């Protein structure tokens, strides 16, 4: 993953935790600034080390850490640097989700080693949609759950988000989220 992700994780910790917490996490993970460069692609193991260390230092389950990170990504990090792109991607939650693959297409021309996941939206019924998340990386479903919660808050879309199932695939993971809105989704 790109150092951009590591930088976002650092920002979250520095914002939400006491001073010195990030130093403790990066020391525990054995990571230094050379592995935090925005435009450099690093082995996924480094990212997982950081997440593991953060969970340990913050005394959180890994799933909870990833979920918190996902929400932070949407609420704080992405808008700070990439607000224009976020706005272009959609003005409602459903629109945004439908355009996510397109957004990832654009990002791929700059981040050449970017291996984005795929999101497919299925309208099941009135007020019910399914979000299919497919990735060649296992273990990031909690992060995606956090992203969805963050999007719900960003677009003020009152809905419930539930993970229906996660399936291991031959090359990664496929998770299905069910989103329910009593008043129907703003598409």
């Amino acid at each position, binding site marked *: 993953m790109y150092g*951009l992700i590591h*930088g976002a994780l650092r920002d979250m910790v520095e914002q939400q935790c006491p001073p010195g917490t990030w130093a403790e996490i990066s020391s525990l993970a054995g990571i230094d600034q050379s592995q935090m460069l925005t*435009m450099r692609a690093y082995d996924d193991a480094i990212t997982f080390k950081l997440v593991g260390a953060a969970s340990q230092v913050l005394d959180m389950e*890994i799933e909870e850490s990833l979920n918190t990170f996902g929400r932070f990504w949407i609420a704080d990090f992405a808008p700070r640097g990439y607000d224009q*792109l976020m706005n*272009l991607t959609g003005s409602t939650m459903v629109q945004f989700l439908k355009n996510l693959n397109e*957004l990832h297409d654009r990002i791929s021309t*700059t981040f050449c080693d970017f291996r984005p996941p795929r999101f497919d939206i299925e309208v099941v019924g009135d007020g019910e949609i399914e979000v299919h998340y497919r990735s060649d990386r296992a*273990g990031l479903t909690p992060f995606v759950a956090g992203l969805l919660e963050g999007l719900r808050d960003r677009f003020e879309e009152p809905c419930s988000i539930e993970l229906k199932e996660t399936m291991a695939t031959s090359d990664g993971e496929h998770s299905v989220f069910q989103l329910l809105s009593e008043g129907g989704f703003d598409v």
Partner: protein
Amino acid sequence: MSESLPAHVLDSLFTMCFDVDEQLRVSNPSGPLASRYSQTREHRTLSTLFDVHRPGPITEFDDIRNDERALVLLVAKDKSIALRGQFVMLSDGLRARFVGTPWLPWMSANRPDVRFNLTDFPKFDAQLDQAFHLATQSSMVEDLEQLNAELTRVREAELDANRMRAEFFAMMSHEMRTPLNAVINALSLLKDPRRTPDRERLTNVAQDAADHLLEVINYVLDYSKIDAGAMILTPEQFSIESTLKGVIGIVQSRAEEKGVLMTYDVDSSVPSHLLGDEQKLRQILMNLVGNAIKFTDDGRVNINVVAKSSEGDHLDIQIRVMDTGCGIAASQLEEIFEPYWTRQSIGGELGTGLGLNISRRLAELMHGQISVESIRNQGSCFTVVVPMECATDTSSETSNEAGARSITFDGRVLIVDDNATNLLLQQLVLEGMGLDVTTVDNGPASIELATAGSFDLVLMDISMPGMDGIEAMQHIKQLPSPPPVVALTAHVGENLARDFCAKGFDGFLQKPVVEADMLRELERWLGSTESGVGVGIIASSAIDKMIRQIGRAGFEKVRQLFVEEAERRIATILDAWVRRDLETVARESHALAGSSSSFGGERLYACLKQIEIASKERDLPVVIDAMQDLRSIAAQTFASLLQHDHRSAG
């Protein structure tokens, strides 16, 4: 661009399009353009609809015809939209089509309220890439600034460390030179036949000075190791009472010389066996007890051990070393833990000033602490509190207990070291333990001997001229049935065990080799002469003991149960690991470790304990490393257990 291309095709490639005729009238706008700027449907002229920012004024059709390749930037008169594109002459030569996309930078700067969608920009439009890149660029600048700041900080820290290192070496050189001079002078005088009456006194002087020199060297090595972060915890099962007895046994004679009564008591709250780094704890106690005796004359030194708090298997062990000596002034109670702090004892001895500092650092390494209370002329009490675990399975033998009950082994050992003195010393030590020892002083000769003879264990020095120990080991490992090869090294550094194992060694011993470490390696790899295949995987003594207790039939039955259970648990562990369910990983590893140890599966036990502890601490890199070995170690363990039966039957 051909006129024959349908409009919808053009619109899919260029979202903002319109035609212009020879009178510069605008018509046929694309859907996205018309929806945003409806006036484009009204057949109005170009100049009434748009301000042309690039290439320049368009007052007649020839301005377009003659500059077809120019970049065109247009801003709607009502500022509702800005476009970027170019004009393309249609095949009849009488019309041109503007093909383009929204002009994103202008819109962002002047009409940020206007919302676009990704689909308003064709895939090949680089404006979004530019926007993304610009946003990322500021992060890259921040990266550089932070890198620079960290480099500066590291450089300053390095300069400070170098200065401290220089001071340390200067101090230690002096500390070493002093007793070394005494040894040299005493020995020199001993050569003089006229000094025969003083022989005993000179010998004692040389011995004391040599002891002091060794103490200084050990302290320097420990201090350097801790400083380099090379000290790692090596938890093992041990009896605190055995440790105390061992420490007191060493200092007893000195205590008696000074008229100091040594006592100890272990509270019933302390389990009979603990899981922790016994070696480091012993080192701390040696220092504290040694100091207590040094600063006490005709008095008492008592060691008290109690379990302070507990949570499941975890407890805090408190050890208090109390003396009735000269005490320490209140103002010095923190100073004494600083490096180089020295004070003359009652008997006039001066220490290195490092012992308490190292003890505190060792305690902190073990996630514990040391504190002191003292009253001048009444005595001192040093308190060590370290977290440990209650050992759940005391059936496996530890090096400490092995050392206490027996230090004899069976087997043939090859020692490879280019230093003749080290070679001789190690040979004598191992032959004293009942081993058949062969020595050689270079890599090529060790390969020849390993190929020709069958050794149960090879101890290989690393730094040798010509072929080094790593290369020699790699050759030996290519033999059909290679023996385990343990590295002998004076290197210091973090993760030495992992580094050497990654190179292919089966273990490592750090010089100077401590007896407990040597015993541990010998216990791992050597058993009875009946062991054969799988030596080092299964401790045959454990199997023999089990057979003696429950009989051959009983052993075969429980062995089958164990293998089935173990395979099931390992599958559960691996499955839980894939799901990152560390709680299950830790629980199953803990459960399987105990029974593995009962069957003498030393390596499997060690691997499972490593996984258990690292999972509990969420140390993912350590878990990843240990998981890589789990399957192969388990497979070798099961194969060895089954072959044990086959060999015995044959």
